[in-house]
């Protein structure tokens, strides 16, 4: 890993998850501008979110993994195959749902998806049968004989997913899959992404600016900034605050309780009604018992009624902002 903050995700048994894509000292340049300066990264199996601000190098990384861009230095492997020497075999086993609208002009949905399958090397009869299946799966069964040009934005997003799935890829690249969708369409698309990436033998890399989308679909994330990995790991791991922050539920909001806790070296970081979030000092954060004693003592002093407390979980947005600003 290129950053001490990042650690490779592990499986439930504690073993490192096998990488579906890995890059070593990858350098990609656009003319004189270096976009990926010696990036080293392993992307594990499962659904992985690729996060980063604009210009961080996410799309460049995807393009390089697809073999669209030639690296200036370093090497990249996808599904165990070298991008530089085996780009066609790689593209046969991966699916791409690009960010921008794309289709083959003049074709109906079923023709388009079947053609995409044939281009990948499927026999025409199987490509056609499979096109019907994936169009049904993506919810376009009723509109499959309509020309793609007549589709709404939401339908075009779905057909992009269908054409990426038709040949049964082992790895799927989704670039902003909810781009331009209304809330309901977004929900349905995220359900599809979540469904396809879990228990179907298919790994998915989702590149998105929308953190809630990543939170909802992905198991792990890679945060990239200026072409370098600044955070990587399972979402559940990254969300942990290592007991540094606690959420306390009171029966009623009590300023005296806040004052008592603050007087012990903790700091109120957020409050929502009677739910309070405290950042503890290093001594108190060491054990759950110390934190408990702190809250019970404060409750005794203030007369507030504590209904419960637990280590707080960070939102992905917090993790992302922390990684970007670090």
């Amino acid at each position: 890993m290129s950053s001490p903050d990042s650690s490779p995700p592990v499986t439930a048994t504690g073993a490192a998850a096998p990488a579906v894509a890995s890059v070593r000292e990858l350098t990609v340049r656009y003319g004189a501008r270096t976009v990926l300066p010696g990036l080293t990264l392993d992307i594990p199996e499962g659904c992985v979110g690729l996060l980063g601000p604009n210009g961080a190098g996410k799309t460049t990384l995807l393009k390089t993994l697809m073999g669209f861009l030639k690296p200036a230095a370093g090497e990249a492997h996808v599904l165990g195959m070298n991008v530089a020497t085996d780009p066609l075999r790689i593209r046969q086993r991966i699916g791409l749902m690009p960010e921008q609208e794309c289709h083959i002009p003049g074709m109906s949905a079923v023709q388009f998806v079947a053609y995409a399958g044939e281009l990948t090397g499927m026999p025409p009869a199987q490509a056609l049968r499979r096109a019907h299946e994936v169009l049904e799966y993506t919810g376009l069964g009723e509109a499959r004989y309509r020309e793609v040009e007549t589709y709404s934005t939401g339908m075009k997003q779905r057909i992009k997913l269908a054409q990426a799935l038709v040949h049964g890829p082992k790895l799927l690249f989704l670039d902003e899959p909810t781009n331009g969708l209304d809330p309901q369409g977004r929900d349905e698309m995220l359900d599809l992404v979540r469904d396809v990436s879990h228990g179907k033998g298919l790994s998915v890399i989702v590149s998105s600016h929308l953190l809630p989308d990543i939170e909802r679909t992905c198991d792990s994330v890679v945060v990239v900034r200026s072409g370098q990995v600044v955070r990587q790991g399972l979402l559940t791991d990254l969300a942990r605050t290592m007991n540094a922050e606690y959420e306390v539920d009171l029966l009623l909001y009590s300023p005296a309780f806040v004052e008592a806790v603050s007087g012990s070296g903790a700091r109120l970081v957020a409050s929502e009604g009677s739910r309070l979030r405290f950042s503890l000092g290093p001594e108190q954060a060491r054990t759950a018992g110390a934190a408990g004693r702190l809250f019970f003592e404060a409750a005794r002093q203030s007369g507030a009624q504590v209904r419960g407390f637990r280590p707080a979980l960070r939102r992905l947005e917090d993790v992302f902002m922390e990684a970007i600003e670090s």
Partner: protein
Amino acid sequence: MRGSSRSRTGTPAAAVTAAAADHAGGSQSAITDVSYRNYEGELHLRPYFRWWTVTVATIRANVNRKKLGYWVPAALILVIYFFMGILHYLTQNVRDQMSMTGAGMMGGMLGLEAPVNQYAVTFYQSLSATLFLLFIAALTIGSGSIAADNRANALLVYFARPITRFDYLFGKWMGIFLLLAALTVVPALLMYAFFAVTYYDVGFLSENPWLILRLLAATLIPAALQASLVLGFSAWSKAPRLAAAVYAGFYFLLGNLTVQGGRMMLASESARARPQTVAVVSNMAVDGVASGMALHLLDVTPRQVATSFEGREPGRRNRPPRNAEERARRERREQRFQERLDRTTTERPDLAAMLLIGGAMILLPLAAAHAKVRAVEVIRG
């Protein structure tokens, strides 16, 4: 929606079947299972024939869409070949009748003496007459072939798959080429079959053993030229109409420039002394190259073609004029004919020059298209 009892086929009949199955068995039948299943079937890389998928799709898209700009020229080309075939038949038969009955006088009056190698001349004339229609067809089916893909970001769909730029371009080119070749080759072969049947007795096949191959080559070259050029222009545009307009501009401009250049050279004494140069300059346009190559392949000279339209060589007459008035009339016609011939290049353009220009017209647009066609636009900072 997924995992519901919706039918996979989406047809009412299938939905009813699925509903009945659910009702009867109470369990999910296979037909209602629309959840995602991975594909574990065959996937071939087909290293030498990946382009064929693109070719088939290109042909299918143009044929299915019933484009008038393709089918009207196709019909007109057939009509032209039919008309030329009939004309040839009438000319030959009348001449034969004349020679058999000794009615040479009548033939002379009608001017129906056919020059030598008349079959090849007829093929050449038919081909030349259809070149513009071929251009219209090329414009219709070819101008949008890559431009529309550029507009719809279809290149991302192609190149996210095991398809190389060569596969894509060659597949597109072959699709357009085959569609255009059908317009030139099929009518020519029909005419050839007509001649073979009609003139079998007079040794059409035995006297012209290589004519069919020469004819095939002559008819394929214009299709190849048009396919390459229109593809080259299409690759550099995102709007099919713009690509069509620019290619049409190129076609007409180059055509006019070469014709005018040839005429100007014929008007100058010094240039007329170099008829080969005049012939090359006159044939430097798209149709000019196709015609120039056809002259060589069919072994026809421009003079034979020109005199064939007149039906005779200048100065040849079977019957002496009856009176002074007829003599004067004949002389005036003779003079006009000679003037027309003087304005025409009488030499075949140099084959090497035609090959060079034709090769450039085929390869340069493809190279330009290859440089332009990419999965992603890379802006070098």
